[in-house]
């Protein structure tokens, strides 16, 4: 039986290791053929922003890895609209994450689903396994 797995990301990158190590689980978990989705809530939305450059802080810039998630069939990425708005961000401030749909001649599709808090609340409610970091 395929279970619905959701990774809940609520922490900003670099200040703590949670975002990076969460991403490591997502990449490994992609091999298990479960129904996977990611949620970015609160400061978690900062993980997806454009223009990250970590050269001067001595850490690896892992923001580029999110761009590759589509290749791992991880293509349901829920971003909470209110969290973006509270932080003065719009979808344009986030990296453009896409995946290629095998069933539609590899058409490129958006991975990010901008959802309201109420909509996200419904999605959370459908999950079988919620992994928090």
């Amino acid at each position, binding site marked *: 039986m395929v279970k619905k*797995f959701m990774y809940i990301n609520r922490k900003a990158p670099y200040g703590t290791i*949670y975002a990076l190590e969460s991403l490591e*689980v997502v990449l*490994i978990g992609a091999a*298990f053929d479960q129904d996977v989705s990611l949620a970015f809530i609160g400061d978690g939305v900062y993980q997806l922003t454009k223009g990250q450059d970590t050269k001067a802080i001595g850490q690896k810039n892992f923001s580029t890895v999110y761009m590759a998630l589509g290749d791992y069939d991880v293509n349901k990425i829920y971003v909470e609209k209110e969290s973006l708005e509270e932080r003065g961000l719009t979808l344009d401030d986030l990296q453009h994450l896409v995946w290629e749909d095998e069933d539609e001649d590899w058409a490129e599709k958006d991975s990010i689903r901008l959802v309201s808090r109420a909509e996200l609340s419904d999605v959370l409610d459908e999950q079988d396994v919620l*992994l*928090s*970091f």
Partner: protein
Amino acid sequence: MKISLQINEGPYQHQASDSAIQFTKAALAKGHEIFRVFFYHDGVNNATRLAIPPQDDRNITEQWVALQKEHNLDLVVCIAAAQRRGMIDEDEMKRQGKDANNISEGFRISGLGQLIEAGIEADRLVVFGA
């Protein structure tokens, strides 16, 4: 019911490990099965056998080991998180050419797939963290 646990924080610094131990004891007392306890992030530090807490304090690693022995718990330390933080067992010590190891008996080191499997196989996953 089969329950898996994920522990995200090291012992002492945060209550997560204490809460997880109390939860585990209660779940076992109620007849549930603990399918696996997966230690991630700084949670891997729960597995050190070298900690020396003051005598009037609890020894969290020993509490895990006691539960493991009594109930044959599957205590799994994430290898990637463990290596990053200098937590290694004897095999890893040899493989990596290190001069010491620190993983307690009762814990085993394995990959992140064990966390996903814990989510798949158990009826519930409960996460303790900060």
